[in-house]
């Protein structure tokens, strides 16, 4: 066995992911937060924006659910583990920093996908028809990877105080939701709003979800997928590079 081999490091990343799911994700409050938060935001806009079609709002709900769940826990894992000294345990094990981060990303990706599929079922339960299931599934998987990389990026500041990271996380996450065409259709946005929207990966995912439910999208779907792919690659490379630099400062 060569511990430095890619396949071996991937196996170890999977061990980290299983540990994360067991410790951080299979917790009542996390599951409830993951579902309730987007549902309540959705209900608030459903009641306040009666002129918007249900398909538009459900697409927003699916987008928010994936974004909030894939970024809900991952930013706090490193601070928690730094505080409990378990990060030091991981750091002394034969696993690379990249594999640890990849393991954390796998966990948040799977959690995001799981919760998001529930919101898709809610949409179907409300009478919407799914026109492009494969596109939606591909979009969910790609966006889940992208958002979990964002979640890990939010954990880069080397603090072991989870509340600091959660505050930073909320400061970045909530504005992103409002500029990503979830509550205001991209067609109705002013030019400056649109300029902001194209900078958010959530915009492209929401566009894919809308296409899957209504058959119409603002951007061409290959463009949405390419944009999500580029964001995922950039955020993943960025988070791995930055964590490698900041990890020793947590010890």
């Amino acid at each position: 066995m060569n511990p430095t081999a890619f396949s071996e490091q991937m196996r170890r990343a999977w061990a980290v992911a299983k540990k994360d799911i067991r410790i951080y994700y299979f917790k009542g409050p996390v599951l409830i937060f993951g579902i309730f938060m987007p549902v309540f935001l959705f209900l608030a806009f459903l009641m306040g924006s009666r002129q918007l079609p249900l398909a538009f709002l459900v697409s927003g709900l699916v987008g928010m659910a994936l974004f909030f769940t894939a970024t809900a826990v991952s930013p706090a894992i490193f601070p928690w583990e730094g505080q409990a000294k378990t990060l030091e345990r991981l750091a002394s094990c034969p696993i690379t920093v990249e594999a640890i981060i990849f393991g954390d990303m796998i966990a948040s990706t799977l959690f995001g996908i799981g919760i998001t599929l529930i919101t898709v079922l809610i949409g179907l339960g409300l009478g919407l028809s799914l026109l492009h299931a494969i596109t939606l599934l591909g979009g969910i998987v790609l966006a889940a990877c992208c958002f979990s990389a964002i979640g890990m990026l939010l954990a880069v500041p080397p603090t072991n105080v989870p509340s600091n990271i959660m505050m930073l996380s909320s400061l970045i996450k909530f504005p992103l939701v409002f500029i990503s065409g979830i509550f205001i259709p991209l067609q109705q946005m002013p030019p400056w709003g649109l300029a902001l929207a194209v900078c958010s990966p959530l915009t492209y995912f929401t566009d894919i979800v809308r296409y899957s439910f209504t058959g119409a999208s603002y951007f061409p779907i290959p463009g949405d997928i390419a944009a999500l792919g580029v964001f995922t690659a950039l955020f993943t490379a960025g988070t791995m590079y930055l964590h490698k630099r900041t990890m020793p400062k947590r010890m």
Partner: protein
Amino acid sequence: MPDAIDVTNLTKIFGTTIAVDHISFSVREGEIFGFLGPNGAGKTTTTRMLTGVIPPNEGTARVLGYDIRKSPVLAKQGFGVVPETSNAYTDLTAWQNLMLMGELYGLPRSRSVDRASELLRALGLLERKDQKVQAYSKGMKQRLILVMALLHEPSLLFLDEPTSGLDVQSTQMILALLRDLNLQGTTIFLTTHNMEEANRLCHRVGIIRAGKIAAIDAPEKLKTALDRVHTIEVSYDREVPGDALSRLEGVTSANRTGDKWQITTENRDTVIRSLVDFGRQHGAAIVTLNTIAPSLDDAFLRLTQEEAL
């Protein structure tokens, strides 16, 4: 014998503080090496650098033949770490922690199960393996992290104050296991405050003071090398002339304390022989003869306080 650890000019700076200052030493394969020093001397920082947890600012450390900075994964695959504070996942059971370790070290599941059962039994934790670690006592947690460190059968074990604050039962259990492991060939790097523990366990000890190595040697040599002037206590079954005693070969001074004579010398062997001959010449039998060696505590205090003095 090859070196399990080879450190050259290792340095760590935190801000403006030099925590570890260009230290160099080596630990031979199969030895128990004690790393001693007062609080804040740089022991834990050194251990963290050697285990790849933090990078050094300068210098190199080769662990099991691998540069810890260039090939950290290969080096880490061969050693186990027992930190001062338990760092097992408290939300997992002992068994889940061990299976996680097995996966992180790339062990086949069946091997992890066998080793975990064997080690948990040896350290008296098997019956509570399915209990979450948060319900464990400090001693149980410490024993568990030792099991976690030994699961992959490392050839080198780093221990940072492994018995600090533990009950006698846990301490004895851990020390006995360390002795057995060493007899089976495991190299042990032990950071401790406990001089008695170091004295009994270690083949060699290194003393670090203010980030610098103050001395490295076998505990006995370290103790005797520090005090060139040794003290010998002798008592005879009858009165002997004190002035004749002080004129014996090798005797620096002879002072009476109660029914004993306290002799100071730079050559213990010559003086002991002279004292035996002296008793014979004066028809006095020796009742007690003690060489009073400095303890490792004395050596430690001398070495770590030298700078302050």
